């Protein structure tokens, strides 16, 4: 790899532009292909699948063996609720490669001391979430238990391409949440996307174990759909 190519890849990653590097395994020759240009590439079919499934791999082509490395934008996790479960979840999500946003208009909760080294916004979700931009590499979870904060954010998440939507609360809480969101005009198929009660059923006790169950459920959605 040339330093120039490495710089191009790092620049694309920083700008959340999906790119792939194609390496001819016989000669070592390499080129970068932006996702936007993949459709015009001789390896269009291979590249499209690689981007779509976030899957690097060796491909046997007429020109010989090539290795396609996909550099999809980093995963993102957007949370409403600067609460204890968020504090427990953030280090795990970071270790799994997520960039983290926490949104909570309650200034007493959303403090830098409680949430260092993340994107923290002590603002209302409907002001800040459109700026973050929810995409297919983003997970959204609602943790405040407060409909004034969670509902508008859920409405935005459910009309976006996020790969996971989770909401904290019992079955009863979830049922009333669904009724409220229906009243906001969300349809059944959108509402069916909410994982609520949030997290895999592992008998979690306390914030750390609930965070593990959420992390596991998010990972399942990401990898298995």
């Amino acid at each position: 790899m040339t330093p120039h190519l490495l710089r191009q890849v790092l620049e694309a990653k920083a700008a959340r532009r999906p790119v792939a590097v194609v390496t001819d395994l016989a000669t070592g020759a390499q080129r970068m292909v932006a996702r936007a240009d993949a459709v015009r590439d001789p390896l269009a079919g291979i590249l499209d699948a690689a981007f779509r499934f976030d899957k690097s791999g060796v491909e046997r082509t007429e020109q010989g063996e090539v290795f396609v490395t996909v550099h999809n934008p980093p995963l993102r996790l957007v949370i409403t609720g600067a609460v204890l479960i968020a504090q427990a979840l953030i280090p795990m999500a970071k270790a799994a490669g997520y960039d983290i946003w926490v949104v909570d208009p309650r200034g007493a909760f959303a403090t830098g001391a409680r949430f260092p080294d993340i994107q923290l916004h002590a603002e209302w979700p409907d002001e800040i979430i459109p700026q973050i931009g929810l995409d297919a590499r983003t997970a959204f979870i609602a943790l405040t238990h407060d409909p004034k904060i969670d509902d508008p954010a859920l409405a935005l998440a459910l009309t976006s391409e996020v790969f996971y939507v989770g909401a904290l609360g019992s079955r009863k809480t979830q049922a009333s949440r669904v009724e409220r969101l229906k009243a906001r005009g969300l349809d059944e198929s959108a509402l069916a996307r909410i994982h609520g009660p949030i997290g895999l059923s592992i008998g979690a006790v306390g914030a750390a174990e609930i965070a593990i169950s959420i992390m596991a459920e998010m990972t399942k959605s990401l990898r298995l759909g």
Partner: protein
Amino acid sequence: MNALDTAGAWLAEGRKVAIATVIETWGSAPQPVGSQLVVDGDGNFEGAVSGGCVEGDVITAAQDAISTGQHKVLSYGVADETAWHVGLACGGKIRILVEAVK
């Protein structure tokens, strides 16, 4: 920081750098395709291409790549003739691309 970011940072410091990437796996391999290890001319490294089983050999190959500029594709597996010294205890097989950044 992922391996490519590390490679960029090390290059900016004037260090010689090679990158090893898992390009294919069969059976139970500890690190998925795309996993990377970045190595400098002194053998310092970040990242992983296995559970520690073959890193030593890969680092040596990476330093060779830094001096020769030649890329190389390495294969490891328990069925391999090199299994006596380096192999994968987990029973999987992996192929690794080793290349200098230059």
